[in-house]
């Protein structure tokens, strides 16, 4: 279990995160080129992406819609009028010599996100702003001798950069914030959340100060930390490093650092003195973006149910425990799966929850599959649970049927039929089995009748064995009691 490394220390960390989140649009933010990941280099770069002389950007409305969608989901303000600005620097993977971004007037500002901490308490992290911008291309230094390859497929991919307030105090809070944000953007369908492909990237601003100090210390920015675990490690390393430097009499330099996942360390990349003067100014090729109240309201009306609301509803409507409700709402797909199971069967929603969150997720974890590629569809699982509900099979037999379904042997009813697993509810057949067991076990009968209650379990076991587990357990219990006491 992770711990706050500064617990009981005189130091405290101040952390702010910048998250670059690729938007799931069909085409680029300012051109019609596609944005499929992993295409052959430079096959998804059109004249606009290559910054040929004379080309002009045209804003993709879907990117605006997705940014607004995100903004509304974090209770942020949506700018009535926002402006694209040019951010200038020279780099080979930046074809225009500037990135189109937003500077003074971002589309989303003043939002917030509430995270849950490990002790169960909650904390609200401010979101300063989220602005629209285009991604750069990629420089490829491998596979070329004495040269660098440039792939402009990614150039112009729409991003929102989500900037948090410096409200975060520990690496664990940072991870909780990131996970919450990640879940949210995936839920919203705004981002595919694929961290390995760089769809969701994080830069961490970290400084330390004496606990209770009013002023922030000098911060460093650690770039492109592309997993939750790395974020935690990078921040912890950086906190430790900064304290060590200060305690050793040194000062922290404002600089950009790079995290090395192999060593778990960060190293200086460039200092503030080397930083570019970006010479921001409003892009004269693009008009200000005006979001009318009607436009914003329409997007608000089409927002999906967010994780928090869904969780509350699951607890209320289905009587689930907070834990189960959280598990089942961890993704939109899983929640939809669960709701289908409940809808398609007459089984108790709590029973459905157990099956989905325990049995099904175990199978998925084991096979490394996602819910949308589950070997058992929601309707098929509902079919199985329906047979428990209508007492065709017992819960115990159902586990076997489930295994067979995973193995691809067919639907629940086919398997039950093929394997002759239908529960015996015919009392005369159960009584016959009980009579045989009693006849074979005179010692145990005598023992039970003399007060050894624990022997009851022995009889149940024997009857179930004699019926290959198919006897209805309630009936067995009832009839056994009658016979033994009678």
């Amino acid at each position, binding site marked *: 279990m992770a711990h706050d490394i500064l617990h009981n220390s005189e130091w405290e960390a101040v952390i702010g995160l910048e998250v670059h989140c690729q938007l799931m649009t069909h085409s680029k933010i300012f051109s019609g080129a596609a944005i499929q990941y992993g295409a052959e280099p430079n096959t998804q770069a059109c*004249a606009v992406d*290559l*910054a*040929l*002389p*004379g*080309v*002009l*950007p*045209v*804003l993709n409305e879907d990117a605006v819609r997705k940014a607004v969608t995100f903004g509304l989901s974090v209770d942020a303000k949506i700018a009535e009028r926002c402006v694209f600005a*040019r951010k*200038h620097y*020279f780099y*080979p993977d930046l*074809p*225009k*010599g*500037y990135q189109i971004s937003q500077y003074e007037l971002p589309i989303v500002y003043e939002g917030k996100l509430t995270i849950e901490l490990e002790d169960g308490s909650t904390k609200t992290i401010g979101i300063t702003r989220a602005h629209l911008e285009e991604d750069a291309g990629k420089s490829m230094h491998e596979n070329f001798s004495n040269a660098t390859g*440039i792939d402009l497929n990614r150039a112009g991919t729409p991003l929102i950069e989500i900037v948090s307030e410096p409200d975060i105090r520990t690496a664990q809070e940072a991870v909780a914030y990131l996970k919450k944000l990640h879940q949210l953007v995936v839920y919203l369908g705004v981002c595919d959340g694929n961290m390995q492909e760089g769809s969701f990237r994080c830069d961490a601003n970290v400084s330390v100060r004496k606990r209770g100090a009013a002023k922030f210390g000098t911060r460093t920015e650690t770039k492109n930390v592309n997993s939750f675990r790395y974020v935690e490690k990078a921040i912890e390393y950086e906190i430790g490093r900064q304290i060590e430097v200060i305690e050793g009499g040194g000062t922290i330099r404002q600089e950009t650092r790079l995290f090395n996942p192999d060593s778990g360390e960060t190293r200086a990349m460039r200092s503030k003195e080397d930083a570019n*003067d970006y*010479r*921001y*100014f409003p892009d*004269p*090729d*693009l*008009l200000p973006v005006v979001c009318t109240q009607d436009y914003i309201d329409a997007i608000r009306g089409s927002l999906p149910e967010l994780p928090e609301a869904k969780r509350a509803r699951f607890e209320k409507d289905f009587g689930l425990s907070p834990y189960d409700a959280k598990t089942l709402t961890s993704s939109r797909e899983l929640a939809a799966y669960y709701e289908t199971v409940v809808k398609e069967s007459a089984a108790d929603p709590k029973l459905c929850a157990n099956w989905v969150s325990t049995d099904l997720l175990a199978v998925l974890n084991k096979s490394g599959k996602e819910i949308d590629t589950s070997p058992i569809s929601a309707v098929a699982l509902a079919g199985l649970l329906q047979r428990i509900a209508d007492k065709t099979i017992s819960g115990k037999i159902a586990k076997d049927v489930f295994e067979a379904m995973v193995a691809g042997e067919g639907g629940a009813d086919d398997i039950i039929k093929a394997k002759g697993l239908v529960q015996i509810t015919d009392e005369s057949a159960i009584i016959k089995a009980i009579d045989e067991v009693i006849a074979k076990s005179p010692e145990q009968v005598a023992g039970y009748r003399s007060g050894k209650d624990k022997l009851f379990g022995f009889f149940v076991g024997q009857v179930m064995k004699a019926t290959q587990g198919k006897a209805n357990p309630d009936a067995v219990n009832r009839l056994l009691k009658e016979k033994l006491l009678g």
Partner: protein
Amino acid sequence: MHTLSIAELAAGLRARKFSARELAQTFLDRIAQHDGALNSFISVTAEQALVQADAADAALAAGTAAALTGIPLAQKDIFCTQGVRTSCGSKMLDSFVAPYNATIVDKLQAPSPQGAGMVMLGKANMDEFAMGSSNETSFYGPVKNPWDLERVPGGSSGGSVAAVAAGLAPVATATDTGGSIRQPASLTNLTGIKPTYGRVSRYGMIAFASSLDQAGVVARSAEDAAYVLQAMSGFDPRDSTSVDRPVDDYVAALNGSIKGLKIGLPKEYFAEGLDPGARTLIEAAIKQYEALGATVHDISLPSSPLSVPTYYVVAPAEASSNLARFDGVRYGHRAEGAKTLEELYKRSRGEGFGAEVQRRIMIGTYVLSHGYFDAYYLKAQKVRRLIYEDFKRAFETVDLVLGPTATGTAFKIGSKTDDPVAMYMNDIYTIAANLAGIPAMSLPCGFVDGLPVGMQLMGNFFSEARMLNAAHQYQLATDFHKQSPKGFK
């Protein structure tokens, strides 16, 4: 053939008096004969022209021709033309063959009904990246004024005007960021119109200063200009700053009466600095307008003196940004033997850009820099607003504003090259229209010492039809625009 108007050429083609091929060949022959003296073309696209002319002849024969089908033109070398070098007058793009057509190139040259079916003769010389008022900054050498080969034709559309004035092309496209259509038109006895910002697509037009650049036409008459502007104009979804609004019928509007037209005379445009000879001619033109039934009114555009300094903050700022893409990485000039990335950038740009372009990139970089932005760029934007307000107020009382286009006649080649500020003052009367985004045009109003003088008309947003109408009515009553330079008859 080379003296016929566009309407006459169109009629001749339809009546089979000559074919589009013969017409194109006539102009190609004239280019071969005269352009050695003028240097008005960077590239002559003879083969392609004849192919386009043949297609035009086929369309004319098939009855699918548009109004301008088969009529030749010169394209300023700032417009991307697929498969043809598009240099923008710069060494930087000397090797750049555009893989696509600018929107206006398609609109003018694609066969009917997609386009107007015009025939491109070649790419016209220009100041490097349209930065200049004399066509002396071109990597391809200065263009000579057909009215006096020792003089400049104006700039930046110097090649476009020289070609049309000398009868090497019936009409040419041009662009205007601070006067680059109107000032050269004035210096070569042509009619040149810069429409409202957003009227003509900028897609495929190599950007100098995006918020000021606007494409237009230089022609031998308002009528010719009306035909071609009509074909170029219109909304383009690929240019976010183009305006989605129907295009007026410029040609149909030409013949309306201008009785009662209210013309404003801004006192700031008739202050000192204007050549006395030019002033006399413009005053005569005003009298002519009164004779045609217009009324004249004294007005004031008080922020006018701030135009030039405002422009020389805004335009270089945008240029420094727009020209950042020319880095030697993907296309254009790349320095040889660079050892580091920084060296590659510095040398490619240092070698590829001429002195004037470098000067403006440096000014622009400076005014956008941290700590200077507010004092320069932001302040300039505020002044720009004042200039716009001046015009807005003026157009509440008058229909058009009339004044000089340039301070005088064409100057000698080399006479101002060492004094950038003197060169910049050439555009003192033209810049305000770009800053305000309003349409403006220049038309001939006489000669001083055998050199042409132009007057300028400025109108409210999207008043091109009215401006062209006023110009045409003046040209019906005068014959200055019919004069052509000796030696190019």
